[in-house]
């Protein structure tokens, strides 16, 4: 009982310390000012993003306008526009019931045939129809985990008007688009309750430094910030909101350093990285030390990787290595200051164990590195799909043919990740969340500004000082 009480007190303390959930009665009105670094060219889920930065920003903004049938929160799959779903045992035929009375931005009511048409655009290979008011999907191959697939933003339901206008069901509708700026208006008839703010103005193409400056100067309400800037923000009395860890930072050795004979060498370097200290100090406790690629909240097994990293070289053995094996060139993305800071920290740790790590951040051509520091977005989905995406993005880059079938059991996922990491060619370092700086005006009702999966919960945001 005492223990239970202490848990409750701890939770209460967190609640009191948190900025994002307020007890005051919310106020309607005002414009939420958001800045992003990328330029979002289109909110159409069917359109391809120009780069990963645009894809990430677009996914967030798109979630305000278009909604999927099924979504994900910290408890797993949750109904969104669908109210229920079921399939035959193989997942060859799915039947999805649609929420009734959902009004589109153009004032019409969402019907099952709208949904079927929308899904046919993004999944032309699926057989999609409407039977007895339900949407029936027969994928080309059985998909036992189709609901997980439907949570992806590209399966958000978009109704295309004859004029080419896009109508969605989300809490905001597209109001205006100008160069470098997008304006959204509150959807008054939103099925889950009208947003508190009247509008959202998204300034695009704003560099990170300018975003931070605008936040501090009171010209922006929500900006993306780096973990290394978090202290600066809180010291100025502003606030931080973050998701669960969504980015994996890992060192990936180049093929000439990936031989099995160098396994002990790589393990020694890996073991020398003080991930806990990096997370606590450099990354302001906003990151999680990583022994696995898939973050713990998505895998459910990650701590098992901390038990054994395999035998490493002794200090004397490292000292006895030829000079070229004691020097490691680590390449980082020149446009990512956070990755650079992490690489610098790895270099410091490596020096402690007798290695010299040279951090290379070339703007153009540069000598071949020994390893790269990569930053990969981990999809917030089932563990098999999360690892499958990482295999595709990291491991298969070098011609590896590792695969993981959708719907794989957890032990299969665990074994696949163990197999992926046991050669220490891919060395997880930390997991990073999406982090945002919030102005003093930003308050929320019931839910945090940013969900665990990084989605913007701006429908629940209200502004303390009214319209700007």
């Amino acid at each position: 009982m005492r223990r239970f009480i202490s848990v409750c007190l701890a939770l209460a303390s967190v609640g009191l310390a948190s900025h994002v959930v307020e007890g005051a009665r919310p106020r309607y009105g005002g414009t939420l000012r958001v800045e992003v670094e990328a330029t979002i060219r289109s909110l159409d889920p069917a359109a391809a993003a120009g780069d990963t930065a645009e894809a990430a920003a677009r996914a967030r903004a798109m979630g305000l306008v278009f909604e999927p049938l099924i979504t994900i929160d910290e408890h797993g799959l949750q109904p969104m526009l669908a109210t229920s779903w079921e399939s035959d045992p193989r997942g060859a035929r799915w039947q999805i019931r649609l929420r009734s009375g959902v009004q589109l931005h153009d004032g019409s009511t969402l019907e099952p045939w709208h949904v079927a048409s929308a899904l046919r655009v993004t999944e032309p290979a699926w057989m999609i129809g409407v039977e007895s008011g339900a949407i029936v999907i027969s994928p080309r191959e059985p998909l036992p985990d189709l609901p997980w697939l439907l949570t992806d933003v590209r399966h958000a339901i978009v109704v295309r008007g004859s004029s080419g206008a896009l109508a969605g069901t989300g809490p905001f509708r597209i109001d205006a688009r100008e160069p470098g700026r997008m304006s959204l208006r509150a959807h008054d008839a939103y099925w889950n309750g009208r947003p508190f703010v009247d509008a959202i103005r998204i300034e695009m193409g704003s560099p990170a430094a300018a975003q931070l400056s605008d936040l501090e100067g009171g010209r922006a309400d929500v900006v993306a910030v780096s973990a290394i800037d978090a202290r600066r923000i809180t010291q100025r009395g502003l606030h931080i909101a973050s998701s669960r860890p969504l980015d994996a930072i890992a060192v990936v050795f180049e093929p000439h350093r990936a031989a099995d004979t160098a396994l002990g060498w790589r393990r020694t370097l890996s073991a020398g990285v003080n991930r806990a200290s990096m997370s606590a100090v450099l990354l302001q406790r906003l990151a999680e030390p990583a022994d696995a690629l898939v973050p713990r909240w998505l895998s459910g097994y990650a701590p098992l990787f901390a038990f054994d990293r395999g035998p490493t070289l002794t200090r004397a053995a490292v000292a006895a290595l030829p000079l070229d094996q004691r020097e490691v060139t680590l390449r980082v993305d020149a446009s990512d200051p956070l990755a650079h800071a992490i690489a610098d920290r790895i270099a410091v740790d490596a020096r402690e164990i007798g290695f010299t790590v040279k951090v290379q951040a070339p703007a153009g051509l540069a000598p071949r590195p020994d390893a790269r520091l990569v930053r990969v977005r981990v999809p917030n989905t089932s563990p098999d799909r999360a690892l499958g995406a990482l295999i595709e993005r990291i491991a298969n880059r070098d011609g590896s043919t590792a695969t993981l079938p959708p719907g794989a059991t957890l032990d299969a996922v665990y074994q696949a990740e163990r197999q992926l990491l046991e050669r220490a060619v891919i060395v997880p370092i930390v997991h990073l969340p999406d982090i945002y700086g919030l102005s003093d005006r930003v308050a929320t009702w019931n839910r945090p500004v940013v969900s665990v999966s990084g989605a913007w919960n701006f429908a629940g945001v209200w502004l303390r000082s009214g319209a700007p």
Partner: protein
Amino acid sequence: MLSFAVVGCHGREWTPAFALAGFGLAGRLKSIALVFLLAAATARAQSATQDLASEFAGRVAAAIGPGATVHLVCTGEDGRTQLELGRSLAARGVRLAESGDSATMVRCSCLENLREYACIADIGDGAARRVVAATRAKNSGGPSVPNPIVALQLRPLHAQRDPILDVTIAGPALLVLTPTAVTRIPLPGQPPFAPQSAAVATGRVWPRDVRGHLRADGDAFEVFLPGVTCRGSSRPFALACADEGEPWPIGIENAGMAASRNTFATPEGFSFYEAAPLDGGQWLVVDQEGTLTLLDAQRRVVARGEATDHVAALRSACAPGSYVVTARRSPDAESADVLRLARVVGTSLVPEASTIVLPGVLTALWSARMPPRSQDDREAIAVVHDMQTGRYEAFHLSLSCAR
């Protein structure tokens, strides 16, 4: 009567032992832990992981093989996973070693991801390495029904100086059973009438810990006392008794209470004080040692748990599943019992609400069905003896739900 109440319920001394793990009985008792976790943070997640704990232990034990020696290392901030798995493996004949020398290394974790609650073990090293997992899917079927927040609801029914054995509602009246009589009193909100009493006519001498139970069906009612059965009517009020024992309606087959005893016995001869029928034909009973014991559909002992004085089953349409209320002496008060509500998940009891401290010692806890509740609802009557004031008070116990 007072001395009984001071000594303890059913004349037993209160044992502070808090047994967590089950143990063998006559070679038939399965080694399944009956765990009552008090440190509940989220009952939903906990019930799922508790449910899968024994399956996980079974899979790990099967992978290791009987008689093997293992060095167990589990992740977890409070060591609970390691503790529980260690107990379960030990109960399955697996030996636990303090170090990894000459023992099979078992690394394990019990966590969750978006898809499932998961326990996973990585066993051994090198070529002999095996992975064992047990998972429970989270909501994967669509409509998300909010998990009800279930709580115990106590409604005072009647208080008096004379000992109360049981109460029930018969027509517009409340019937109160004492060792000597059945009294008919008006229910609150019903037209008043003068209380009526009918003596329990018997030649028997009651045991010191006399127990009695009432069952009403409309205006008709039955009285069950040790070696005595009475039948009566509320309107007109009448009562006729015979010194004949009959099975008591307590939800499990029994031959009634012997004239000079305070326990029941199953047809197989297993003695117990109280029984709570569960879904699936099982029972939780308080055995003669005062231990909460799980009986299977054949009334065989499946598992044993903590020391408990009372148990009763509760059910409500608003909260699917089997619920039980248990009672034992409050650790903070010499003369007060506490009620705890738990949900039965497999062979585990998952706490569902904070404990309730009663205003005295619980002297009786009977399952009851009180109008106007649904036929599917199962409720209970609790009788409390407040030793400070010397009065007995009957409460109606039921589940209440909030979403």
